[in-house]
């Protein structure tokens, strides 16, 4: 019995220690080699570089929800932002984040900029924490550049349902 106890104790000690070592090795590898994408989470105020024809408005709000490299986002205009809290926020755009830049595409039903519907969006992170990129609109031949500033980082835990 005593012998068995010593044997089993050593077994457990060895097992646990080896798992701990394995964990340490893997985390060391992970910390050094593995890179997770940066956080682009939050609300961005987009200012278009040039206005659309006959259009005074040139601001949009981009709300990005991030899960690693998978992005879900929704576009809205600042005015209807306050009114309809839910419809706009249904993330209708999605895309992948790759090396500090990403492209989003999808259906944007309820947001128009002077009757122009946004279609796709490409952007990259700029060092100051904003974005810069270009948007294409439906039926508008060329894409329009923009800059965006991060409005406020949203709390992930209160992101219950919008």
């Amino acid at each position, binding site marked *: 019995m005593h012998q068995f106890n010593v044997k089993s104790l050593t077994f457990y000690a060895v*097992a646990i220690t080896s798992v701990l070592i394995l*964990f340490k090795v893997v*985390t060391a590898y992970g*910390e050094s080699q593995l890179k*997770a994408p940066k956080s682009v989470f939050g609300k961005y105020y987009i200012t278009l570089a040039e206005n659309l024809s006959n259009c005074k408005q040139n601001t949009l709000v981009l709300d990005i929800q991030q899960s690693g490299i998978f992005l*879900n986002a929704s576009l809205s205009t600042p005015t209807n932002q306050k009114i309809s809290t839910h419809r706009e926020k249904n993330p209708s755009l999605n895309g992948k984040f790759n090396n500090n830049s990403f492209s989003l595409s999808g259906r944007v039903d309820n947001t128009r900029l002077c009757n122009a519907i946004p279609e796709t969006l490409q952007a990259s992170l700029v060092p100051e924490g904003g974005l810069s990129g270009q948007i294409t609109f439906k039926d508008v031949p060329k894409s329009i550049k923009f800059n965006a500033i991060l409005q406020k980082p949203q709390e*992930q835990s209160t*992101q219950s*349902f919008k």
Partner: protein
Amino acid sequence: MHIVVVVLLEILVVIGLSRFVGVAFRWINQPLVIGEIVAGIMLGPSLLGLVAPGFAATLFPSEAVPFLNMLSQVGLIFFMFLIGLELNPKYLTGNLETAILTSHISILVPFCLGTFLAVILYPLVSVSSVPFTAFALFLGAAMSITAFPVLARIITENNLQRTRLGTLALTCAAVDDVTAWCVLAVAIAVARNGSIDQKAVLTIIESLFYIGFMFTVGRWFLKRLSRYYERAGRLSQLTMALIYSGVVASALITEYIGIHLIFGAFLLGAVMPKNEGLVRELAVKTEDFVLIFLLPVFFAYSGLKTQIGLLNSPQLWGLCLLVLLVAIAGKYIGTYIAARVCGINKREASALGWLMNTRGLTELIVLNIGLELKVISPLLFTMLVIMALVTTFMTSPLLELTYPKRLIRKDIIEPKMDTEEINGAATVSVSSSEHPYRILVPVANPSTQRGLLHLATAISFNRQQNTIVNPLSLIELPEDYAFESTPAEAEKMIRQRQQELEELIYRFDPANSYQIQPIVRITNNVARETTQIAHIEQANLILLGWHRPAFSKNRLGGRVGQILSTADVDVAVYIDRGQQKIESILVPFSANIHDDLAIILALRLLLNKDTCTVKILQVVTDKHIKKELSYEVQTLMEQLPSSVRERIYVETVEAVEPIQAVVAASEGIDLTIAGTSRAWGIERQTLGRYTDQLAIYCRSSLLITRRYSPVTAHLTSVLADMHSQVAS
């Protein structure tokens, strides 16, 4: 004020939906809590938000969420307290070495796999602000959890708590649970501090110190409380106030230390001295409000954060599948190998593996903490929630597949039964039957069903044959998730009932009590369990009392009707009118197989008792149509010895209304036995309801028979024995 109204409305919806979905899941034999978790998810963006976003946003505005959070945290604290209370060192009984080895491996393997999975997932679903160490630790902890509360209830419902497998599973799960909480504590400490650095180590040391404190000083204090309780006999409100304050205080302390609130509450529950009365009263007083009101709010709050809509590409579903596979593989394979190494057979090891795979509720708690600390993102959170649900969902069906009920019976540790069976077998000569003639008698209230038992013994006991009467007492657990459904409590109820029954049997018939062997089981569906047991035990007959109708007038309704409809053995329903003796028997005859069974049972009664007489009444409505006794009955009657045959009278009566004729004939008779046939107004209608015309009017006690098997052994076995004995 407005926001309070909204929150209360939400609670109303949450409670209602939780109960509804919970019951639906019960119906498909799944744990109630899983239904409640699904109800919570349904209220979130995964279903309600998708189908009716406007309504969902009105019902769950973002301003109300902090209130829900508050309620769910309180619910969680007290729920963890209840879990700690349930954790009884009694579960760490035998098989300790096996249990320790199995539980160790069943944590280490999933943990390692989780770490490797983290390597794959980190670049995909995490962000750089989350350190890899914390991420890997969380994922490892999430993979290695086994939900002890849910598992304990699954074990109780399957009546496994007395088997080797059940006790082993419980011990392993208890050890697993506690270890996983410890890993989680470390994970939290690391996540809050960024890495395993000084501060985290300090947190861990502080926690250990606190645990030690609770187990020594805290325990001492609580022991005094327990002694006070024993003197007082009940829990006063002051004591409850002290205990609840203790729970909250302990939770605050652990939160301050740096590990989560829930640990303090859990710890207090765990160190509470397991004085049975104290623990039970405390649990019963606390659980109703927590389980019905607060816990569903937690599930709803968690469900609001579960967005199945996020999994919107095949790649993401593929990742989800990977997570699921890793989780299942880690637990199942780890447990299986460890169990096999300890010498447990393949079937049990496999069943143990599936049992340990249950992650359910505990996993949800861990995931919510991870999400709160932002270690995992909503996408990964959703994937892991799906994993938790699927793994728990799998358990019951897979358990039934690998370890079906009939095998469970053989593993039950019942030493007392063995000695009695040996005595019984010695005094009764067993000639031909491999298994004895068996009657299953469901007794709801043993003291009032003496007549039933009397009839059962009259039908079964036969000098030539080995017979057994099994009074079956099924304990329905009052609630699905209460303290009383934990294995220890369930065991106690079973033993109590068993003792009651055995006393009753001894008083009823001391000479033959060895042939009356009670079966006591836990169930949540009496009819289903009865038919299953009849099937497993290969009973020849189920003998029931009649249904005492609460709303309808039907004596063959309710469970009686269900058993009549679904059992795959012969069934007889006894409507007792208080006759003490069973000597003169009437059998109305209308040439269908159920009536044949009636005749056969009557003949058996005749055989067993020399003073019985049987009158077979043929009721003829049309002069020209005279039905013959069936071939089977005729052959049987020919095989009877003449001393028996001369006690059978066959009478023919002409009447327009067969029922009235039988009623008239039943005057002065001890027992009428009739089959379920239209002639007597007892037949199966659509939806399985049985009408009970004859039962209402019959003057004597009535036995209604419903035949199932084309070949009945009620008489044939006895006759065969008799003939072989005569021959020899």
